[in-house]
């Protein structure tokens, strides 16, 4: 098959002659620069104006975000639950456990912080309180697990595992309520 040639591309010979880097001065309409300046200024102003205001999603979007936040927290609780299960079988070294538990705890913290920063729509204050409360409980529980793992307090693991299972049930229940009738 022959070579692909595109009209206007410089030939190799011109490169070897050393003219390849010779820039042709380009003209830019003066108005184009003004438009750019105005657009950038507008963007900066709008960012500055909205930076301090909390996010105010509509009801459906807010419910979606609550759903996602609960799923994320549930995933982290399940991760730590699996971790303790594997620890029971002596399959995970202590330092690895610490890192995974800390990662899960900080992930829940980030999720909570992100969701709490969203402005709940009118009439959803109770849901907001319920969702943030259950996430807060999960965060506290993951902190307890992390403390136990760092201290190698293996005696506490069976109780913590039960609490993690209960917590997952609560998170699932809260998610179901979000999907309940009237939503």
């Amino acid at each position, binding site marked *: *098959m*022959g*070579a*692909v040639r*595109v009209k206007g*591309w*410089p030939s*190799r010979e011109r*490169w070897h002659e050393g003219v*390849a*880097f010779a820039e042709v001065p380009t003209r830019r309409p003066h108005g184009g620069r003004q438009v750019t300046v105005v657009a950038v200024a507008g963007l900066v102003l709008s960012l500055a104006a909205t930076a301090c205001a909390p996010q105010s999603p509509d009801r459906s979007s807010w419910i979606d975000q609550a759903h*996602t936040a609960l*799923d*994320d927290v*549930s*995933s982290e609780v*399940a*991760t730590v*639950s*699996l*971790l303790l299960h*594997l620890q029971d*079988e*002596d*399959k*995970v*070294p202590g*330092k*690895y456990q*610490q*890192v*995974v538990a800390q*990662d*899960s705890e900080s*992930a829940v913290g980030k999720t909570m912080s992100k969701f709490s920063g969203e402005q709940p729509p009118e009439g959803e204050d109770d849901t907001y309180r319920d969702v943030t409360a259950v996430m807060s409980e999960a965060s506290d529980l993951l902190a307890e697990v992390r403390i136990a793992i760092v201290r190698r307090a293996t005696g506490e693991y069976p109780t913590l595992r039960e609490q993690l299972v209960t917590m997952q049930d609560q998170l699932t229940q809260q998610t179901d309520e979000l999907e309940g009738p009237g939503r």
Partner: protein
Amino acid sequence: VKNIFAVALGILTAIGGFVDIGDLVTNAQVGARFGLSLAWVVVIGVLGICVFAEMSGRVAAVSGRATFDLVRERLGPRVGLLNLAASMLITFLTFVAEIGGVALSLQLVASVHVLLIVPLVGVLVWLVLWRAKFSLIENVAGLLGLALIVFAVALWQLGPDWSALAHQAVTADKPEDEHWRTMAYYVVALFGAAMTPYEVFFFSSGGVEERWTPKDLPTMRANVFIGFPLGGLLSLSIAGCAWVVLGPLQISVDSLGQVGLPVAAALGKIGLAVAILGFVAATFGAACETGLSVGYSLAQYFGAQWGKYVRPHEATVFHAIILIATLAATAFLMTAVDPILVTEVSVVFSAVALPLTYFPILVVANDPDYMGQHVNGRLANTLGSVYMVLIAGAAVAAIPLMIWTRMGQ
């Protein structure tokens, strides 16, 4: 015997070097959520990287010059600059992600804060790029990366329902609780992870470093067409393990520690230790490759002396670029940005930059003035053209899907 050893070594390093932090994270995320439903994307992505790696390797072997060198010469400084800008941005972002990946992998062993490890990794990567020989970097990291085969062993040990996995892979079945748009987002992310631009630039420049000639074409093709697909099987093993262990528990992967849990479940502490060795080798090897690729791309575009096969004082620009890139990547990570997030972003933006990266390679590999009798044949051109369409589709869809799905949530 020497030739057989060279081919075997090349294939093994290609397998071990195929997986990087993007593949580790994306395949585990996709596996936990979709099982092997998106295995076809890995297959298409691996075939795509084989097509373009073979082209760029052939260009290097026949012309004795690397891809960027020829792209600038053949397509002119403007198109070359566009190509450079797009691929450099992604390669640098990938470099950041890989250094972060090494730090996260070491954190799993050391259990200290990742920000304490990042500067050490930055220094170590720079030292290796400065002092170590090219073949040493490529072979050691590639061979140690083979430790990731532990995922295939773990999948076997977990004893999944193979027929169900095969059914998923063949029918591309979407789990009921997932949206099509989320699936489409992960299709693009997986495709971007498999076809990361740096792999081609590293492969092509590496060919020049190792002074390939047309006689080396069979070895190069064996590396590409055997090594890369076997590397792709490692990616599928990671996804399979995640589906079997993490999927039923509804765990979505957002940390490297979670990626290793299925191996621990299957093989215990020893298996996990091997997996961590694989994480470190894969990410460290990829950090070296991306760091070198940054140096290669810029030095080749600006016509400076480059490469590990010349002494550092003869390639000062090349080594200065690597030093600055390593400092910048380390500084970026020290802002406490999440390396996993950087990885997720880099694989999606990789998809955006693919057309600008791969189109010039197709053009150069088609030029009989450079390639002579080794110019692209009918099959290479057909595959190359089909992939250009796929790549264009992925590039257009990547950003809208990222926004629409809030990065796959």
